[in-house]
């Protein structure tokens, strides 16, 4: 099972941005969501999750605000900013190009989504 450290450099940022593009979420939620969607294949360790969230926030791609969680506990929610949305868009394009190219090299023409 690959852990977050096995993720390609920069991929974690992409995953977080993609996850947050659906709805604002707290850190735990982001980790859980990635784990669920990847069918437990990707487990994001806290050691990389929070530094990544902080990094994205410092870059101005996501914004944090305190709110109440589902069980009414105070939690920090992250939300994609306009700049973040633009960044996500360009990173997705890069990813598509890259994975298509890698697929070609490896001789496994993958179905390119979108």
């Amino acid at each position, binding site marked *: 099972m690959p852990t977050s450290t096995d993720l390609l450099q920069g991929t974690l940022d992409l995953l977080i941005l993609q996850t947050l593009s659906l709805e604002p979420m*707290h*850190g*735990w939620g982001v980790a*859980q969501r990635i784990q669920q969607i990847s069918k437990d294949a990707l487990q994001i*360790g*806290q*050691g990389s999750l*929070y*530094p990544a969230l*902080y*990094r994205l926030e*410092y*870059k*101005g791609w996501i914004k944090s605000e305190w709110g109440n*969680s589902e069980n009414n*506990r*105070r*939690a*920090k929610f992250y939300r994609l900013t306009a*700049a973040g949305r633009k960044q996500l868009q360009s990173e997705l394009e890069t990813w598509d190009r890259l994975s298509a190219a890698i697929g070609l090299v490896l001789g496994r023409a993958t179905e390119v989504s979108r």
Partner: protein
Amino acid sequence: MITEFLTRLRFLFSRNRRDERDDEFQFHLEHSIAAKVAAGLRPAEARRLALIEFGGVEAARAQCEQQRPGWWIGSTTQDLRYAIRMIRAHGWFSAAVIATLALGIGLNTMVFTLINAALFKPVPVPGGARLVAITSRAPGNGDDRLSYPDLIDYRAQARSFQALEGASDQEGILGEPGIPPEPYHLERTTTGVFSMLHIHPVLGRDFRASDAEPGAAPVLMIGYTVWQNRYAGSPSVIGRQIHINEKPATIIGVMPKGFMFPTTVDLWMPIVPTPRDLKRDNRQLQIFGLLQPGVNISSAQAELTAIAHRLVAQYPDTDKNTTALVMSFHERYNGGNIRMIFLLMLASVGFVLLIACANVANMMLSRAVARQREMSIRAALGASRWRVIRQLLIECVLLSVLGGTFGLALAAFGVHWFDLQTSTVGRPYWVQFTMDYSVFGYFAALCIVTGLLFGIAPAWRSSRPDLNEVLQEGARSIGHHRGGKLAAVLVIFQFALTLVLLTGAGVFVHSLIKTLDSNQSIPARELMVGRLQLPQDRYKDIAARQRFYDQLLPRLRALPGVTSAALTSNPPGLGSAESPVEIEYQPVPDRTHRPVVAYITASPGYFSTIRLPLLLGRDFQPTDGNASHRTAILTRGMADRFWPGQSALGKRFRLYDDQGKPGDWISVVGITANLLQDLTEQDPKPLFFVPIQQQDWSGISLVVESALNPTAAVRAAVQAVDQDLPLRSVFLLNEAVEHQTWYLHLFSKIFMGFAFIALLMAAVGIYAVLAQATSRRTQEIGVRIALGASLRNIMLLVMRRGLWQIGAGLAVGLAAAAPAARLMASLPIGVSPTDPGVFIAVAVLLAMVGLVACWLPARRAAALDPVKAIRYE
């Protein structure tokens, strides 16, 4: 883009609050536990697993913190504050490190400045780096000049040069009505020399090509100093009619302040070639050239060599030995001895730097060992290894910068001092000992590299200890084994280097003492010396000069305060002439290798003036020295050398000239005590005196003994006999001798300074190491005292380690010092070979200082109160 920048800016100033982050972590953990409980784990187990999964909270905090733009500024200021606190908390330790560094860096910066100025910095004119000197031989190998036709041929054929100009130096006596004549350094040059240098007169006009045409009106260019001192800076000096060496000329211009090309010139005149100048074998020109841009010395050399070969073929009679050597100004003027001495200085100052570095490294090392526990605790609390190292590095760099700043001040002072010390020794005007930017660069690099050098090793060590081991057992037991060996090696290294330096200083001081010791019987402080050069034109022969002397001497002796006056070619300690000699009835096996003797001329009364006892025979008389009656007075050294065990009186010898032709037989009429004329000669030649009228020499020195300062009166007396004759090089004899041996004085001081500093540093080094080691063993020593160890036991315990290090250092140092001293004596810098006394003296001195440095911590250890010591932590 702009929003991103603004966001970054915002976060630069407002940090996420720490408790917010902790709340977030807490929230995460709670969810994690809840998820695990939901999956069926017991709450306690779920909590444990969640915590393990989360990992180090502090590490996560730090990583989040490090995402913040500019996060390092905060932690660096933190480190800086901490470093300043540590430096202040260990005041004595820091002072020792800073002082050591200041000395090491300061001395290096100083010496580098000096060497840069003396050996590398180009002449400060446009294109100065392309300025070269052309000689016929390497400097110091006798006559190295070229002829005027050579210059014309090289100019016509060489393509490597933008300009080629010639010059020949001589004395120029400036005379005019109303101002007493003064001798200056005159350079006769070809007319393009100033435009080659792109230097133009501040007043008046440059030389023109027409000034060098036959029959042109003679013109004179004066230097700024002459203009200021002789003519009070008056603009009306242009067009003034003066006499230069008693021939009329017109002043046409004043050169800028400080310009004295090529070395220390005051006056310039164009060369108007005479038939004599145009002879191919009349070699009296120094040639200076400005290389074409992009042409280097070796290709210019190749071109000139080819031309020289053609000249040899073309003029086999006159040019058979013609060669041309192209060299930089530094090679030409600061080669040989000067270069050697500077490189020697560089080597010794490098030793000082090595000692300084070893010292600082040692001190840092011993402290790092003492601080191992602190470092381990920091590491255990989550500080990364880089953070620990950086903390120490900042401390080291800070110490280096402080030390370097003091060092810079020291260097500036040292350079200034050296500049003053060498201002009167004929240094070319373009060698200026001032601090400059490349030196600042060197200084800064040195500073940082030194800091890193001694910072990184201890930092690396202390960031890597086995955490558990250190935390459990305490720092004491570990430090002892780890730091011990390296520290010991460093101390040995220091003592060895110090010994070599001390020996170097000893060699210089020994030579200096030897020269100061020589000629002790002569009252050098009461003798005034001055020099006269009688012009060939007016004093054509020996008889004419003798008439002048006969008029001058009685006037000198009649001056108030003057007790005695005499004439000689070379006052005591100021050189001599040398010739091969043949002793009558003593054939030599090899006629081409006759013994060489040294001689000077002396007027009657000279021996009593300089208080040199006449042991046998008589003084010179006015009748001595004519062709039928050649006489000499020998020193005892010469008499014993050639006539051992018999009286030399009445014996005869003769001298050989440069062409190998013998002169007249000379009879010995007296024998004096020994006198040393060549102070820097390692093996002085046997010396004798001849009457003044026996040598056809046009220069003469006055030696006047007087209770008062006779300079003005002596000048007046000379003027009264010949008003156009200037008196030059007026000194008290002791000053003149010091002037002659200036570098021995200067470098004795410098090397003693270096050695003293090295000694001090070595002492501080061994003291610091022992004191640290002893304080780590306080508990152990307390136990030993409590168990009945005697004072002597404790002293020995502490000192033993220091003693064997000193011993080893001395042994290594002596092994290195002997060849170093031999090397110095073999260099042609006027130091004498060293007797073993010097080695013994410096070794004993060093051992004593080392002993004291060891004894201090030992005494403190022995005086410990065992009860307090055992509780010491």
